[in-house]
């Protein structure tokens, strides 16, 4: 287990703050997007792109790179911010998200956007795609690790559980699932719309090693990511308990901000809150 210095935690918290500020501005400018589910995974994206992933933004197709799949494609703005801030493309490109001719689509497009490993949009595909990547690197080195960020919505889809069956069959320890469990989806609370509990028991029953964390606690995220790499007999899921809309008081824990756009006053207030937010 690595010791993670306070300076790293501080640095990643600042990245997460920047991701949220970018997402807020992108959604406000474009008058479309998904702030709630982008905010709930900001710390995880910061930890992955600015610490964990073995990547080189100058070589998006470097064969040895770790793979990251955003199965919850509606968090596209957060992914775009992480990629831009990490150097895959100019930060100014974020201003043209969703414009005709721009490379940043409403949901991630692997053909158009450097650094996007897989196109996504409809929920649930990522785990099965990750199983395929895992099998591929066994057959054809170099070896790499695959990370997939799922939402609670992803885990309501049948294809996700089919993917879990396959991950267990092939003892896919070279993949780590991060489940952004904010418990809020488009129409309301996930526990009302289609309950997932007992989710940890379900993952265990499907053959996964389960780590449960607070998904906004960077130290817990980093430790969980390290632990997952030490498990060599089965795939790992990090169940990250998160808050939808985290960081903006009036967006937190409400389905309304799954796919809503702030007005001028809300934008100013949200910006002020995010600038003062301490993880």
């Amino acid at each position, binding site marked *: 287990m690595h010791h993670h210095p306070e300076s790293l935690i501080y640095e990643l918290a600042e990245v997460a703050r920047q991701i949220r500020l970018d997402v807020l501005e992108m959604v406000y400018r474009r008058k479309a997007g998904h702030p709630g589910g982008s905010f709930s995974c900001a710390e995880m994206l910061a930890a992955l792109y600015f610490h964990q992933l073995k990547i080189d933004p100058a070589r998006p197709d470097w064969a040895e790179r770790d793979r990251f799949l955003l199965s919850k494609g509606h968090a596209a703005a957060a992914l775009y911010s992480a990629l831009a801030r990490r150097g895959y493309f100019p930060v100014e490109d974020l201003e043209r998200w969703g414009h005709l001719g721009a490379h940043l689509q409403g949901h991630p497009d*692997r*053909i158009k956007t450097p650094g996007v490993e*897989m*196109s996504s949009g*409809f929920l649930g595909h990522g785990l*099965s795609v990750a199983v395929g990547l895992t*099998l*591929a690197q066994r057959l054809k080195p170099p070896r790499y690790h695959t990370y997939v960020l799922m939402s609670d919505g992803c885990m309501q889809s049948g*294809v996700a559980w089919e*993917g879990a069956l396959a991950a267990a069959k092939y003892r896919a320890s070279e993949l780590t699932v991060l489940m952004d469990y904010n418990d809020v989806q488009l129409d309301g609370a996930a526990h009302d719309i289609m309950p997932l509990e007992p989710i940890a028991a379900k993952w265990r029953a499907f053959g996964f090693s389960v780590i449960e964390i607070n998904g906004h606690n960077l130290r817990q995220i980093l430790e969980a990511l390290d632990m997952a790499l030490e498990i060599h007999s089965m795939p790992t899921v990090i169940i990250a308990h998160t808050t939808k809309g985290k960081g903006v008081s009036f967006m937190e824990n409400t389905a309304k901000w799954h796919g809503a756009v702030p007005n001028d006053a809300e934008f100013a207030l949200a910006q002020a809150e995010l600038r003062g937010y301490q993880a």
Partner: protein
Amino acid sequence: MSEIPQRQAYGVALAEYGAVNHDVVVLDADVSSSTLTKYFADRFPGRFFNMGVTEASMVDVGAGLALGGAIPFVNTFAALLTLRACEQIRTCVAYAHTNVKLVGGYSGLSDYKDGPTHFATNDVALMRAMPNLVVVAPADNVEAALMVPVLAEHDGPVYMRISRAAVPDVFNTAHTVRLGQGVTVRPGGDITLVGSGSMVGRCVLAAQALAEQGISARVLSIHTLKPLDVELIQQAADETGALVTAEDHSIIGGLGSAVAEALAGCLPTPVEFVGIRDTFAETGLDPDSLMDACGLGAGDIVAAATRALQRKRC
């Protein structure tokens, strides 16, 4: 009629090509003994993945394998593949442009004994409407075998349908295929019979019957339904002035629709459609009598040609 079913020709070819191209991996959804990918599985167990009855996930796993540099052939019954995994094909194969080779066995009515749930009569319509996807229906066993390396060496996603049944032989072993290039099987100047898949052989039989009536029918074999060989079809329309399309598929959205789309805008020409009417069909005792009962017989092609010729003369 060929001595072995088309699926066997495909299965044998896939296993043989597996020895040549080590990037090829094969996935199946618990029907490898039916699609006959089991030949590949027996020879290359390390490159064969039996995914069980997880068709949707299997397509996504295939996409992941392709992203990792493998060349996955993803197999199950055509109806299951294109219906149950339709969104996976749309999002993770066609839209994401992953190098996945989708192979649907049991095309058309060829699984006569299992009935309408198992028939694939709208797979071409669905797959043809997917941008980026090449759609292939080999005419016979020679083409089915030739397509294996052609698909593998094509950089991009492909859907190929394969018959469960023995289909009429059309080509000899000197035949070659190029994706997107139709084949003139038989010359003729009065009318053109355009066939795909197992219907090409029946078009040849129909052309022979028409010849006895003094009608010279050209036969085109369209193994690539998309991109369609528009030039070959427009030339045939221009030179013969009437066409019949014949497919082991619904008349909605398949070869007939593609041919009509190719002609309507620039060269309106009488076209008659031989295919499955807007029906689920029914269980039969053997593939050929079922196809005949569903309007897919050589006699149906002859009758359609007669109608097209009458419209041509008007």
